[in-house]
Structure formats: structure tokens, C-alpha cells
């Protein structure tokens, strides 16, 4: 089953900021015009000039880096697509923020009981078969919500139909192994202030290839150390025995 995904079409975005407002009210945040992602802004529409706008939000990776690095499994990839954070588990190590290739999670730096904050793809709506707040309010259809397969097919259809509108690739199709937010961009990723050097494969395997070797390395290493201990111990025992023999004329040999 395909997960849900958002398709953002930059050529249709008029920068009205309705998605920002809907997002804020959906997540009970004070209404404001964000200028970056922070603990009170899960999405942010950036004015690039020339009547072009970039949208920033959690990319809801198919195989999320944040989920893989979290030591306590506080971050989870919902089967429907959203990536959610569980405050009851979080220890606040902020490895998710370090590791996220899109630099999405933010933190409540001024709180004595801080939360990791980020777009949760309106998980409470998606589980009720509703589209995300941003997609349902978007007046121009710049943000669409649907199954990832369908969104990806639609993106490629538009790419073929209007090749001059876009850079020619779907941002998020391969980035970090594929994301749950797909972007049709009229400008390069870098000009959109999106990371342009995200590897075209999923990230968790990078550390997993190291971790999965431990069950092979550690027993061998342990056997070697134990063996060295035994060998040296035996040598000492023999030496002290001989020493003893020599001194006592082998009396303890009966």
C-alpha cells in the first residue's frame, strides 16, 4: 500500500500564506507570518522574488533518518505516511535534528520541558481520511494531497505536459531515498533554499552497515581477548609452578 504524500507545484503557488495559517490553527499555534521553520511554524512560504514562492515543511521521508537515529523510538513513520514524535519517549538528545538531511525538526529551546517540533502531516486528520490542513485550504491547487503513487504519476504527467515550467525533476522522488513531499520546482533546489546535496539514497543504511557488523566483530574480539588472558595466565601459572618447584625441590609434587 502506498503511503500518502503531498505534491507541491511551485508554478501554481501565489504565496498567499493560507497554508501557513491553516497549519497554525490546526496545531493550535498563535497566528503569525513565519520567516523560517521554528517551534511555532511547521510550514513556511518563502518569497523568492519574481512572484515565485518556496514551501518548507517536513518532507516525511519514506525511510526517515530521524526515525532511524532516535535512540528511544520517539519518532515513528506512520503506515499512512506522516512522521510523528512521541513526547512520552523523547529524551531530548536532538540526534534527529542533527541527522535530518532537510534540517526540519526544531526545538523549544526556551522551555524547561522542551518538545521536538515539526510538521506531522496532520496525522490526526490523515488517520480520519482527511487531507492535510494545508492541502485542503490551498486556493490554487499548488499543494495537493493523495497517495504517493498517484502524486508521483501526476508530477511526471505535469513535467511532460509543461516541460518549460519546471526544472525537469521531481524534488523528493529520490532525495534521501524518496520523500512523502514531492515538489515540482521552477527553480533549482538551492534557489528554493532546499538542500541540494541530499544523497539520492536513504540514509539509515549508512549507520546500519556499521552497526550490523557488531554481532560479528564483538564475539570474535571477545574470544581473542579471553584467549589472550588464558594464554598469559597459563604461562604465569607454569612459570610460578616451576619457580615453586625449583625453590621447594619439587616437594609439592608428592
Amino acid at each position, binding site marked *: 500500500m502506498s503511503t500518502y504524500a503531498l505534491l507541491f507545484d511551485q508554478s501554481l503557488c501565489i504565496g498567499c500564506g493560507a497554508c501557513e495559517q491553516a497549519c497554525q490553527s490546526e496545531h493550535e499555534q498563535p497566528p503569525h507570518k513565519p520567516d523560517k*521553520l*521554528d517551534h511555532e511554524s511547521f510550514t513556511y512560504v518563502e518569497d523568492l522574488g519574481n512572484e515565485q514562492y518556496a514551501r518548507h515543511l517536513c518532507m516525511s521521508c519514506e525511510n526517515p*533518518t530521524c526515525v*532511524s*537515529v*532516535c*535512540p*528511544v*523510538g*520517539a519518532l515513528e513513520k506512520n503506515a499512512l505516511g506522516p512522521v510523528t514524535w512521541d513526547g512520552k*519517549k*523523547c*529524551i*531530548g*538528545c*536532538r*540526534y534527529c*535534528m*542533527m*541527522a535530518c*538531511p532537510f*534540517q526540519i*525538526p*526544531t*526545538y*523549544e*529551546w*526556551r*522551555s*524547561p*520541558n*522542551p518538545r521536538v517540533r515539526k510538521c506531522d502531516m496532520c496525522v490526526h486528520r490523515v488517520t480520519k481520511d482527511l487531507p492535510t490542513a494545508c492541502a485542503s485550504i490551498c486556493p490554487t491547487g499548488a499543494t495537493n494531497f493523495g497517495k504517493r503513487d498517484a502524486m508521483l504519476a501526476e508530477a511526471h504527467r505535469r513535467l511532460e505536459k509543461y516541460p518549460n515550467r519546471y526544472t525537469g525533476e521531481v524534488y523528493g522522488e529520490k532525495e534521501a531515498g524518496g520523500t512523502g513531499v514531492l515538489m515540482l520546482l521552477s527553480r533549482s533546489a538551492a534557489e528554493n533554499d532546499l*538542500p541540494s*546535496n*541530499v*544523497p539520492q539514497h536513504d*540514509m*539509515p543504511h*549508512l*549507520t*546500519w552497515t*556499521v*552497526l550490523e557488523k*557488531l554481532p560479528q*566483530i*564483538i564475539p570474535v*574480539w*571477545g574470544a581473542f*581477548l*579471553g584467549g*589472550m*588472558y588464558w594464554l*598469559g*595466565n597459563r*604461562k*604465569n601459572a607454569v612459570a610460578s609452578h616451576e619457580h615453586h618447584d625449583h625453590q621447594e625441590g619439587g616437594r609439592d609434587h608428592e
Partner: protein
Amino acid sequence: MSERKIPKLHFWSSFFVLLMVMLAFVLFKRYTQGIGSISNLNDSMPWGLWIGFDLLCGVALGAGGFTVTAVVYIFHLEDYRPMARPAVLTAFLGYLMVIAALLVDLGRPWNIWHPLVFWNPHSVMFEVGWCVMLYTTVLFLEFIPLVFERLGYNKQVHFMHKYLTPGLVIAGVLLSTMHQSSLGTLYVIVPEKLHPLWYSPILPILFFVSAITLGLAMTNVESFISFRALGKRLESNLLRGIGRATAVMLMIYLVIRIEDLIVHDSLKYAFRFDTASWFFLAEIIIGGIVPMVLLFQRRIRENKLALTGTQFLVVLGIIFNRMNVAVTAFQLGTGTDYRPHWMEFVVSMGMIAIGVFLFSLAARYLPVFVEEGPLGKSAGPKDPYAELS
């Protein structure tokens, strides 16, 4: 009695008291107003001085514990036994300070035990958490015989040494192998965020080898400090041996490090003479090649002061490496600006000060330094090892 001795106001003790007062203030602020109120950490720089220094350097500085115990108990180089106790004590206190610093750095420190019950084996941090927890327990068990010995529980000490120590030492080496390397693995998942002069898929190997190097160097440095500050005996012949071992380990480390850069075609960045290049060259040349060459010189090893100075350079070099990975390379790779807040320094310095203070207390009241007698046995009638020989 006309003359009463007024306690002398030593520079270090007044500095310590001042630092503790500042630390108390900083901690109060931290736990009432959040991490942001005492640090310059932010959403694009979520890890800073504390992870770089207190965690990465703190754990690496504690590597003397597993290195020296392995040398003595597993490889049976009995000559080095007098160094085992100070090394274990340093490591134990070092890890306690690491955990104390984590209680400041973690956003929800009261959940620090969560990796025990909420498992994610895919997370490097999960593995580090478990290893640090288990290894601190191992260090505690390696340390506690000192207390027992002091209290005269000779039977228990004998039992522990006979039945527990070998297993503990091996467990300690295995756990250290895992988490010393895993601190490097933490950064393997951010290839696009670390400057290529510091990113490598073999960061775990680099971290492990350099941790052993640092453990050896630190053992020398701390022996020397104990000699100067506490008047403990300095085993010059042992220091010379450690100097040779450090030189070899440093050589192995530098070969792996440079070779790795060549393999990934990253060595070219070393000679661009920009910020990254200067930091890298300083780390490798001043903190690596220079002390390695010096340690290979007999003249240097024969001179306690020169030897310790060189070993201190090794320590600084590897600390510099950890800070470069955690801060410099991350900043250069992501274009983030971060300068630690002065209150961040108060926390880090406070942790060092508490560690040093506890070490000096232990050195004074526990049989840490064995003044006489072979094989680290305490001299005197209450020899708990007597039955062992």
C-alpha cells in the same frame, strides 16, 4: 595559643569555589528557562560544545581505563599494574562527568533511562547509551575494590579480584570498543553535513584507534600531574614504554586517517589554505605528526618533562580532532554560525573541575597509588592479595 593557622587561600581552591557558584547559577537557569537560556545552540546547530567536548572528548579521555586494564590483565604486562588503578579511577570519574554533562545537555534528562525500555537497535545513540551505561557499571565494579580495601573488606576484595576482574576487564574492552567507535558512527549518517576533511564512513575505526592513543597519552599526563600535585611516585620506565606505544598507535592512526582521505579523494581540501584546511593541518601536523616524531626520539622519552609535554600535545591533538568533527566540520559543512555561550563553558569547565576534585579526594583517601610492593599490592600487613600469590 597565640597563633592560629589561617587556611591559605589557594588560587585553585578559590577558582574552584567561584566556578561552582557560577555552575549553580547556570544550572538553575537551565532547569527553569531551558537550554536556550544558557547556550547558543539553535535549530541548525543542535549539538555544540557539550557534545563535542563533554561527550566526545570526555569518553575518549576515559579510554585510559580500558587500555591500561587490557594491557595489565589481558596481555599480562604486569609492570604496568601500578597504572591500572589511577586509570580506572580516571575513567570512572570521567564517565560520571560525561553522564552529569548529559543531564545538562539532554532536553528531558529525567528520561535518560528510556533506552533501557524503549528500544531502537537501528540507532547509534541507542547503542552508545547502553554501552556507556554498562561500561560505567563495569568501571564502578572495577573501582569499588579500592573502597573495600580501604574499609578492610579483604575477603570481598580477594573474591572480586579472583573471580570478577578478568571478566570485567574483558567486558570493559568490548563495551569500549563498541561505544568509542560508535561516537564516530554517530556522524556517519550526515555525509552531506560534515566537511569532507572530517567525514568518513570509517569514522568508527578512526575514533577507536585515536581513543586508544589518547588513553595511553592521558595515562602519562595524569601520572605526571599526580606526581607534581600529589607527590605520587613517577614510574619513569613505564612512562617510556607508554611513550613508545603511543608513538606506534599514533602512527597507525595517522596512516589510516591520511589513507582514508586519499581513498575518498578528500586530501585536496587540505591544501586550499582556507579555514577548513588550516584547522585540518593544525590537527594533523601539530597534534599528530609532530608528537609522533618526537615520541620516536629516545632523547624525548628519556626526559620526563619533554615526554609528558609531548604526550600532552597528543591529548590536545585528539581533543582538537573531536571538536573539529563535532563543531568545525559541521559548521563548515552546513554554513551554520555558532560560538559557544560563556555559560556553556561554565558547564564544561565545571564538570572538569568536579572530576579533578573527586580524583584528588580519591587519591587522598583511597589506595589509588601503590607506593611499594610488587604487582600493585599494597604494602603493609593488610595485604588483601596475599592469598593470591
